[in-house]
């Protein structure tokens, strides 16, 4: 009984660390992830452009002062950042797939196979931003066995090929 409990505890600890993914799982590489990200970026920008155009139209019709215009630009910029953050957080924590990921059939999951939670998603996004200069955070994708980037290591996630079935 005690042995079994110890084994279960050890298994749990191991899972909480960096458990190995089951056989048959393949991981998305740099090119696939870049294309997926480009699709997401295009969608985010398109939505931002649309909203920006509508706001510009309103300002064109209703004349406002220079100060109000400046405040609106600052608020618009902040809203765009919030929108971009919400976009990734929402999709990662719900289906694990952003629209770009869905097109490329890849999914973000935790290393233990569970879906990403809010905190993990925020950490992952922060890691993505940190790794952006010279794409230094993305180099590990090319050389690590599970093709993990800096933000994957930070948030304990992997990006798997979602067109394949995982063998438990």
């Amino acid at each position, binding site marked *: 009984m005690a042995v079994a409990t110890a084994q279960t505890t050890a298994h749990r600890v191991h899972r909480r660390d960096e458990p190995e993914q089951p*056989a*048959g*799982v*393949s*991981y*998305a*590489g*740099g*090119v*696939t992830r870049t*294309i997926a990200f480009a699709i997401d970026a295009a969608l985010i920008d398109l939505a931002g452009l649309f909203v920006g155009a509508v706001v510009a139209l309103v300002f064109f019709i209703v004349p406002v002062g220079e100060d109000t215009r400046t405040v609106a630009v600052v608020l618009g910029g902040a809203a765009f950042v919030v929108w971009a953050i919400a976009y990734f957080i929402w999709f990662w924590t719900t289906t694990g797939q952003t629209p770009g990921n869905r*097109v*490329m*059939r890849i999914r973000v999951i935790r290393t233990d196979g569970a879906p990403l939670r809010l905190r993990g998603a925020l950490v992952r996004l922060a890691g993505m931003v940190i790794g952006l200069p010279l794409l230094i955070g993305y*180099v590990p994708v*090319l*050389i690590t*066995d599970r*093709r993990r980037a800096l933000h994957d290591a930070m948030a304990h996630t992997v990006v798997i*090929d979602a*067109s*394949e*079935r995982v*063998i438990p």
Partner: protein
Amino acid sequence: MDVRALAGLPLWVASEVASRVTLAAIDAALSSRVAVEAVDRIVASALVERAVERLLATDALEQILASAEDAAVPRRLIDSHLVDQFVERLLESEELWLLVDEIARSPAVTEAIGTQGIGFADQIAGVARERSRTADDRLERVARRLLRRKQAPVATPVQAG
């Protein structure tokens, strides 16, 4: 005046009158209610079906087609510019474009176009996925070779069922 030609004039007039009367009678018969009803009854009866069955049962249709082919009828038809004139007139008619417009707006056609569009987009995405995965492997091999790291283990993917 030529006497022979003068003698043949009544005959020509009679022939012309007879032809016109015959054609007028045919036109009148074809446009009559009786003719329309007769055609409707023939079509509604099993006669047409039986005629088609008989035609298909025998090799009469093949013979007709073979003889038409031998006689180069289609080629002559095309060479006569009859088809060109027909197509030209057809394209000039407003009814045709109304019909095309009507068909293009029909739910069945728009649905089919939509399905085809989605299928095509999915096909493009499929090709992009396949190529990106190949590029992933190549890029990784090159990076590992440059950094003198051991090559990644080959994954054995299981296709989704």
